[in-house]
């Protein structure tokens, strides 16, 4: 079935919100750094995961487990233990980035379905097919760097299902190939499961405005009328050749509602909504809009146009209250 809606579940409440509002699948992580949203107070212990699975399965929905950080030599067992637990719990798939961990999963749990995480940085069909041939990966989540025609070239040249990010926080860098966070704080998504970690953030009111710092590095300074966003490193304002601006990316969100007909036509298997760190209320609203949109495009792709009310609702929820088509739309690059 094309265009499966995959929604974020940072908590049991969020999982239920996603399921109740029309997600075909939810994705979650265990409560440690085996996933790329290793935030305090987020994610599932084993009992909660079991309850979430029951809730979703009773309603015919799937649960995917993100194990998408890179295990280190001395912590290897934490990741293999997580794969074992995923299999035991009956997860519908595990989302992995590390090739060594994939080999472990295939060897020890051959029945467990594998998805290639966006953190695996596969941007070509050659890379995607590598994971298919060696580990039987059945679905790949593509980094947010390809234009739609480039995505189509991947889809046409692989038997692996392709999942795309549809909405939420926008990584401007190739996921899995960004060490900006550890350069600044010592912790990166790859090795620690966090980007621009909250514990390294400092806010300070100064005479020249509200300042946000990450491990002491000034990321931005806000005027009185400016809304301050979470200080994600790549979305700060910096100086380049005497000019101060968002040198890497504005604080904006990805929103691809406009592209749904093309995604359907090219055979995209699933649309992923970012935001395991967001509230159940957020998950409810985003899931509702995307469910309606996907149903509408499947009913009639030719006449599909995003309803103004959907766009308004999503814009309200967006970081910086603005959105972009990102790399899917070539001029963004």
């Amino acid at each position, binding site marked *: 079935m094309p265009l499966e809606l995959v929604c974020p579940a940072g908590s049991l409440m969020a999982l239920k919100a996603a399921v109740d509002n029309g997600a075909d699948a939810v994705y979650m992580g265990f409560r440690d750094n085996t996933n790329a949203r290793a935030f305090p107070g987020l994610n599932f212990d084993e009992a909660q995961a079991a309850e979430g699975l029951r809730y979703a399965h009773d309603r015919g929905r799937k649960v995917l487990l993100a194990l998408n950080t*890179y295990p280190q030599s001395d912590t290897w067992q934490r990741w293999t233990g997580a794969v074992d637990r995923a299999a035991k719990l009956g997860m519908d798939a595990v989302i992995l980035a590390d090739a*060594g961990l994939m080999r472990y999963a295939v060897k020890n749990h051959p029945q467990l379905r594998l998805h290639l995480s966006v953190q695996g940085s596969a941007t*070509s069909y050659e890379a995607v097919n590598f994971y298919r041939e060696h580990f039987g990966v059945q679905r790949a989540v593509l980094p947010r760097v390809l234009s739609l025609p480039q995505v189509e070239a991947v889809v046409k040249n692989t038997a692996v299902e392709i999942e795309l990010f549809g909405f939420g926080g926008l990584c401007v860098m190739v996921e899995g190939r960004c060490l900006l966070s550890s350069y600044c704080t010592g912790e990166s998504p790859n090795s620690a499961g966090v980007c621009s970690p909250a514990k390294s953030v400092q806010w300070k009111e100064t005479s020249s405005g509200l300042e946000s710092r990450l491990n002491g590095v000034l990321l931005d300074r806000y005027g009185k009328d400016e809304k301050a966003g979470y200080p994600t490193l790549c979305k700060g304002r910096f100086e380049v050749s005497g000019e101060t601006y968002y040198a890497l990316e504005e604080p904006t969100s990805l929103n691809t509602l406009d592209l749904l007909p093309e995604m359907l036509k090219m055979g995209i298997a699933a649309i992923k909504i970012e935001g395991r760190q967001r509230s159940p209320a957020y998950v409810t609203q985003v899931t509702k809009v995307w469910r309606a949109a996907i149903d509408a495009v499947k009913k009639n792709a030719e006449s599909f146009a995003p309803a103004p009310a959907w766009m308004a609702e999503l814009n309200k929820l967006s970081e910086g209250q603005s959105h972009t088509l990102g790399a899917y739309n070539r001029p963004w690059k």
Partner: protein
Amino acid sequence: MNLSLGPLLYYWSREDTFAFYEAAASWPVARIYLGETVCSRRHLLRLPDWLDLAERLSAAGKEVVLSTQTLIESESDLKVLRKIVRDGRFLVEANEWGAVRLLSEAKLPFVAGSTLNIYNPETLDVLAGLGARRWLPPVEVSRTALAALMERAPDGMETEVFAYGRLPLAYSARCFTARHYNLPKDDCQFRCLDHADGLPLSTREGKPFLTINGIQTQSAGVYNLIDEVASMREMGIDCLRLSPQSHHMARVVAAFDAALAGGTNAGAGLAKVMPGPSVDGYWHGRAGLEQDAAQHA
């Protein structure tokens, strides 16, 4: 333990690029990595030019390795990759898993580059089985983590470490140099040519932070492990990678060569020829931008 010259990460004129490698032919580096790894729009040297250079440097006694593009986006990117693999004359460094697939299918030995994200011995073992003979850890990996990994590395696997230069930290579909000039990427007017060591990015209080290099983001600080040479040798590291800069590269190589020969204080004059402040935080398991105070008090 010996030295390698990493791939040129910036975009220089044809003349400057050839002049750089002509000089490099006489530097005390055992290996030279060649090729465009950052951006497919950089075309002043095309693959045949790189292959000519490879022949010349090989004749001068260097081991030449062709390094592949890190972010593959289009079919034409894949075409170049296939040509590199098909050429077969030189060892290839795979910088993403599509290259690994092509090289292992062709049953060719290869170097597993740092952007393959090898963080544990199991993944290194997967790559060894596919033909990797040498590997580089991600630049954020600490000495302690690397030592733990090397203890269980497959037999015969050589370890190379990025030991000098601005750190390649991130890759994007977006070109930040073109963005700086308000140009679309497809019509970037090759502004990278004006920034031989990248475009410096500072915080709003004027502290150097990062370096813009087209679609790549580098550190502003220069990773410099010259004071760690003895301990790296003890760990069994085989090769130290020095990343090209536009000026004084010969002096950088000479300083590391002196350190390898056991010279004390080999790095003393290095600060004068570095394009940014020295950093070594990653090596010590801390934030990359930090510098070990004990070493540089």
